[in-house]
């Protein structure tokens, strides 16, 4: 699936939630479903600055594609990072850097994201794209 297709699919999943409580519950469940992050990766170097809760993000590259390990000690934040992981996992760096993130606005999640959390989201996205950028630079012919 492309980044756009994954976002469409997630949008449809959230649309089937009745009310805001159900959406939050869905977000929390997505977070809980993240594969456990190996303890060795839960280190300060992999922490994202700008979030009130602790968030760890660690990339892996396989065959020119990027895969992310992520975790947080807060459930909603973990849900948000899980959304991002689902959207960007297994994508090429060029796609991660060029395709827009539309889901968060369409879900109207930002309506409920206070600036602290919204900033945390932009910090996560920035870090994710930095990883993609680093990989792209590494792949570029010398």
């Amino acid at each position: 699936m492309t980044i756009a297709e994954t976002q469409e699919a997630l949008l449809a999943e959230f649309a089937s939630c009745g009310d805001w409580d159900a959406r939050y519950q869905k977000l929390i469940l997505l977070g809980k479903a993240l594969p456990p992050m190996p303890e060795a990766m839960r280190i300060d170097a992999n922490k994202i600055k700008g979030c009130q809760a602790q968030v760890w993000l660690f990339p892996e590259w396989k065959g020119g594609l990027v895969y992310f390990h992520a975790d947080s000690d807060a459930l909603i934040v973990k849900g948000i990072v899980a959304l991002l992981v689902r959207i960007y996992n297994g994508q090429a760096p060029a796609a991660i850097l060029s395709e827009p993130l539309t889901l968060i606005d369409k879900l109207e999640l930002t309506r409920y994201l206070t600036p602290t959390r919204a900033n945390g989201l932009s910090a996560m996205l920035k870090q994710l794209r930095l990883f993609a950028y680093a990989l792209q630079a590494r792949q570029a012919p010398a």
Partner: protein
Amino acid sequence: MESPTLAKPKESALRAAFPVLSRKVHGKPLVYLDNAATTLKPAAVLDAMDHYYRHGTANIHRGIHTLAEEATAAYEGARDRVAAFVRASSRGEILFTRGTTESINLVAQAWGRGALKPGDEILLTGMEHHANLVPWQLLRDATGAVLREIPVTEAGELDLGALPGLLGERTKLVAFPWVSNALGTVNPAAELVRLVRQHCGGKILVDGAQAVSHFPVDVGALDIDFLAFSGHKLYGPTGIGVLWGRESLLEAMPPWQGGGDMIKTVTFESASWNELPHKFEAGTPAIAEAIGLGAAVAFVEETGWETIRERENELRRYAEPLLGAVPGLRLLGAAGERAPVFSFNLPGVHPSDIGALLDTEGIAIRTGTHCTMPLHARFGLSASARASFAFYNTRHEADLLLQGLDKVLRLTR
């Protein structure tokens, strides 16, 4: 749940004074329980500030024209109000600052640099807000002084038994919060002062940021040397605070910032200082904010301490057992004397989740460390959620908080 309204005067009238209380958040009536971070502002404060800008903007002290004289009278009138509010012995003892933080930094720099020698001791507590800790760390680094700490018990109270052993010839300053911003503990200030005076000749600074909105203060009766507090936690605007200092001490202290208004005469080579309080107020001050603070003090006095204390005590007594009954909820501290401030944790739920989910219900609380990282470390926590009440809050709002916490538990289970 049945929520009988509190006693006289009418709750609705008290609440009507605060315009923000009529707004909605996410479609729900705002439940403002973040009063320890900043209180809401009554219309009287907003009107006083608006009036200054709309009818009389002028700089103070130097102008000869009507607007300047009116502005000076309003600004200095606010100082008189504050002086009476804390029972200062003269208006010169009231210095306007940006807030508690700046007040404490002023003492650390203007008093501390001259008063402390290597090895001298500053005694603090384990429940300091960072504003009453970091300025002393900076002073320690500049002077070679040593920081010591009165420990905090499991109940969230100061271990007074340890105090005499911490006081000695080298104790030059004892600084403590009258009310803990995280625990709500009301420290026994009079008892602390008595013990300090008995065992050493050190100066005493009280961080009154969380105290002045809850009960009346009499700096003379308390026999302290410095009191720092903020306007914005006292129903006043941000950007204005107070340092009360004993006049003899302030007289002996050098200025800490140079500029206009704080001087008597200036030549190119040197300057002589203006008298108190102006010696410590360099530059154009926060005029509108000072006027707003004066209005806030008048508002508190008109509302009456009896009303404020009665309502806050009743809210605390009502909310505490309700919170205690939430499954798994861990309340920080259990001091006998406390302000209506509750820091807590829920098992398996990060405080930021509690705050975010309560926000969807229109309920505003604080999450994080509340600028008390050492205190959180003492309780083995990295963060907590804090609900803090003011006299305009209601039992019904405490009920809504409980319903909100039920929702948090339901959604995060």
